[in-house]
């Protein structure tokens, strides 16, 4: 088998370890301390924020317009509505400001 193949296999195993590892560690404890539970509840906002925040550094007018519209729509609409609205504004704005 080629080197590429083994890189893919090892990468797949490393990735699966990250996907199951947190659970394996946490499940060893019978009781979850309230502070740990508070930390776990913060995970979605904390991680997903880091996937957006650095994008703000390079965002131009088109990107900002899309993010603002996404934020406004998300206050009322569902996930699909907010995504389509943000994407539509982005594509439209980029035709004008690049």
């Amino acid at each position, binding site marked *: 088998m080629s080197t590429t193949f083994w890189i893919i296999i090892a990468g797949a195993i490393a990735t699966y370890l990250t996907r199951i590892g947190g659970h394996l560690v946490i499940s060893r404890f019978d009781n979850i301390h309230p502070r740990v539970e508070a930390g776990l509840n913060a995970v979605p906002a904390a991680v997903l924020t880091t996937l957006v925040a*650095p994008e703000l550094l390079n965002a131009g007018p088109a990107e900002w317009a899309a993010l603002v519209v996404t934020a406004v729509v998300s206050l009322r609409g569902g996930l699909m509505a907010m995504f389509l609205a943000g994407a539509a504004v982005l594509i439209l704005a980029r035709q004008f400001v690049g």
Partner: protein
Amino acid sequence: MATDAISESGARSDFWQGVRLSMPVVVASAPFAVLFGALAVDNGFSVLDAFLMSALVYGGASQMVGIQLFGQHVAPWLIVLSIFAVNFRHVLYSAGIGRRIAHWPIIEQALGYFILTDPQFAVAEARAQSGQTVGFAWYLGLGLPVYVFWVIESALGAVFGKLIPDTHALGIDFLLPIYFLGLVLGFRKRPLWLPVVIASTAASIIAYKTVGSPWHVSIGAIAGVLLAVILPPHHSGVKARP
């Protein structure tokens, strides 16, 4: 398995409810799957390699980083370590979602963790937060279309990669940030949401500027989680729940 007709049709409607929720994810990730396939071939992967990596690793950002390094002839162990670093945030997802799916049979759990991506975690957490059970049929309905499309589109990208028109005008480089912002805002009713978002934003931007990518993800995430741990429990609302 469930033999009575009622729970079987319940599972079926749960599955399709999950499929409906998967559609924005399928749309948002499609360009990246095609892009990954095209870049993979460009960096010396065969079409089969691109297909295998999408099918086995199944993590967009880490796959992009992996092929980028592969194209630069970086040592194999360093490529694997980089994939691990990019995917490290899943440790937190895994710890969080484990509480929601612990009642599944072990095989279903093993499969559930395999498809635990960013949107999979966020949408499943949102369902758990709304007081609904995260069942296997629903979870599979949410994850399976994303997986199938991801793998097929990667292979298509590898075959037809050179045909992609102007990606910037189509906005595909910014679709995922839009989607992730929507997910972040979806959690705004959680205790400590704003302080956590502020801490993670600040830490990830500082880390992005100093340490660099992909470490800004883990550093930013840990900053937000630590803040929630450190603040007195009465702020986090954990004790208040039954």
